[in-house]
């Protein structure tokens, strides 16, 4: 879970759950909660301990491995969607949506791509909609109460061929699907 912004005095050590971080003055740290602390990372003035199974998001520039995303910009792509998901009534559904957003963010970091932010909406039918909206097309993911009904779509206008593609999310390798969709975004955004 991503914590709130934390601003500290110089040299102070913060503890949030299992994660500790030391930040410089006026730095903003994004700190995940971890369990089974296994490794220590140091980037600039930020030091954080986290679980190997968690994906931490740490500011202060420089990437240090594919598990980690550097900078504020990449995180800002999913921040609005994460905020909306926190208000979902079905917390299990919200967690599934969050996991999908984290996978998307990992791909964004890998492609070093900055783009329009992802948006999330809590629909009246109990599902969560995640949309990535561009001028000529949009990509969507629907997280349904019945997992087998969760799906994705890609729709485009006439300029991009009037695509109306869709499919299901369960029972497939989502990373390959996401990489394919990202390829479309990179080419057309």
């Amino acid at each position, binding site marked *: 879970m991503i914590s709130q912004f934390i601003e500290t005095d110089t040299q102070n050590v913060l503890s949030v759950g299992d994660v500790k971080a030391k930040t410089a003055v006026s730095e903003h740290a994004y700190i995940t909660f971890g369990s089974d602390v296994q490794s220590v990372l140091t980037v600039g003035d930020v030091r954080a301990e986290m679980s190997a199974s968690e994906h931490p998001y740490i500011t202060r520039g420089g990437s240090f491995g594919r598990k980690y995303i550097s900078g504020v910009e990449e995180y800002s792509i999913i921040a609005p969607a994460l905020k909306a998901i926190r208000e979902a009534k079905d917390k299990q559904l919200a967690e599934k949506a969050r996991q999908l957003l984290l996978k998307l963010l990992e791909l964004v970091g890998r492609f070093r791509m900055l783009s329009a932010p992802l948006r999330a909406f809590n629909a009246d039918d109990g599902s969560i909609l995640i949309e990535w909206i561009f001028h000529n097309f949009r990509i969507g993911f629907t997280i349904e109460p019945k997992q087998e009904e969760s799906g994705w779509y890609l*729709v485009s206008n006439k300029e991009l061929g009037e695509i109306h593609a869709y499919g299901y999310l369960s029972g497939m390798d989502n990373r390959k699907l996401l990489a394919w969709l990202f390829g479309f975004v990179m080419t057309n955004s």
Partner: protein
Amino acid sequence: MEYPDRCIRGIPNETYLTDGGVAAHLFYFDFQYTRDDGWIEQSVNWEDNKDAIPFTINQKTTQGKQFKAGVAIVPRNQIDNIKSAPTIRGALSYERKSLSDNPYHGNLLLISGTPPVKMKLIAASLALQVSEIVKQ
């Protein structure tokens, strides 16, 4: 039957607005509105004349304005394009259905049995084609 060039969909509140447009769930079909003929209704108004948009904007319920965030306009030729798309053909239609207190009323129609993900594909296609938003 003749139809005008534009279709009007009311926007209940700001949660449906995003990034200069509307989110797809503005056009979600509610399966509880399935009719005996196998179609699922989604209320719209048709822009038969210049009064249609103001009429829709001012529609009220017992709790005040029905469409607090305004209305979204979808060109009918775009609905026709969506209707004829290979992955959608046969699933989407529309009709007029005027009411005693609403002469502009009609419905977008979804064929029953459409899986949720396909319904949401159609909804997203409609949202993408919104040409104008008229706010309260």
